[in-house]
């Protein structure tokens, strides 16, 4: 399992494009927001938590179609399926690798981009906490979507259509934590809900992902 994780990490680091692309996309989306809504700092401060969450979510989505497609094309997915490691473990590791290469950099970059959007001072901690808890769920749900569409030639657009509705609960609670944190309000309820969703998704969804991957590999 660890060998597979290291392999995936090395591939995404060395193959170029994949690693920095999500971050660059996050930066661009955040930069474009003031152009579209205007530079008033009060307005930016109110929408900053939501915009940062949406940007992180879209950046996550961007790299999903590479998650399994490359392994599918060169046949290493077939090898992994016949390996002693259960397929549920494989998709969990894939999701973990995706989170380390995409989710974690986004979490680290979010406070910097928060400065650009004039995020209120109490919001930084809550933003990072909510992203740390929420982005793993985004990676795991995304892996399910990638497993569903892996056999399709032009699966990218369909993948977005399938995955985005599944992101709704995570986005609602994650952005709510960040928003309430920035406004200095109580955050316990949405934080617990967000953690609950992440925990349940991480525990259960790999089984569904492995099932659809088996169907696709048939």
């Amino acid at each position, binding site marked *: 399992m660890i060998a597979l994780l290291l392999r995936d990490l090395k591939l995404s680091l060395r193959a170029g494009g994949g690693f920095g692309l999500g971050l660059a996309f996050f930066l661009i989306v955040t930069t474009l927001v003031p152009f579209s809504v205007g530079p008033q700092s009060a307005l930016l401060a109110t929408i900053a938590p939501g915009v940062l969450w949406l940007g992180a979510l879209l950046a996550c989505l961007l790299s999903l179609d590479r998650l399994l497609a490359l392994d599918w094309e060169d046949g290493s997915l077939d090898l992994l399926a016949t390996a002693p490691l259960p397929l549920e473990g494989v998709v969990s590791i894939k999701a973990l690798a995706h989170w380390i290469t995409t989710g974690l950099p986004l979490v680290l970059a979010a406070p910097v981009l928060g400065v650009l959007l004039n995020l209120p001072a109490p919001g930084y901690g809550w933003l990072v906490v909510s992203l740390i808890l929420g982005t793993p769920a985004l990676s795991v749900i995304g892996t*399910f979507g990638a497993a*569903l*569409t892996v*056999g*399709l030639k032009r*699966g990218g657009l*369909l993948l977005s*259509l*399938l995955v*985005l*509705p*599944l992101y*709704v*609960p995570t986005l*609602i*609670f994650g952005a*709510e934590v960040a928003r309430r944190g920035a406004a200095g309000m109580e955050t316990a*309820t*949405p934080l617990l*809900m967000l953690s609950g*969703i992440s925990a349940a998704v991480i525990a259960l*969804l790999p089984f*569904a992902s492995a*099932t*659809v991957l088996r*169907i*696709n590999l*048939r």
Partner: protein
Amino acid sequence: MSLSQKMNALWAYANPKKFLATTERVLPFFWASAAVAIVVGLAWGFFFTPDDYRQGSTVKIIYLHVPSAMLAINAWLMMLVTSLVWLVRRHHVSALAARAAAPIGATMTVIALLTGAIWGQPMWGTWWAWDPRLTSFLILFLFYLGYIALWEAIEDPETAADLTSVLCIVGSVFAVLSRYAVNFWNQGLHQGASLSLDKEEHVADVFYYPLLVSIAGFILLFIALVLYRTGTEIRARRIRALMARERVAA
């Protein structure tokens, strides 16, 4: 008949031939009764009920809004059940019924959203509000779109049936999650349930009976459409098989 015998009688329709023969016989009755119930329900509702003392005649859109909203949810529920039946018992008719129901459910969702907007404009002063019920219906519509798109995208029918079934099950869980998440996210503008079996909360009797007739009509129409479309899917698959056989023979 005992329960197991009844179940056996139901499973007989997993045979496409039996399914087609029976649906062809019962379909005219479903079409006719659906037409009668909808015409009676809507005519009764539109012309023979009084205007509401506060809402005026706009209240009458309820005869379209409530039935379509009910079916939008129940169509998904039906798809969930048929998807499970497909995954467990591998009856092709079941998978095709789920496929046949999806566009109907999506259409019902659109009708519910549109009639709701038309109703909301004079009543709430806005076409759209990010109310939990409205929002979750919009999300439900997105789920329908994804489900239909996945069916269309996959060529191998068996793979398509398997993948869409899993998507339907996972989607159901997330749809329920979204419903409660949305509830938490914004307070509602929408009124409570129009109908309920156990409470005295439902609408006044003058509106209630035509509404029931109208709902019955929509349900009959839904059944007729699903049976009809499932038959079409079965025949389309047969044609494809015949064409493949001819190509092999030639």
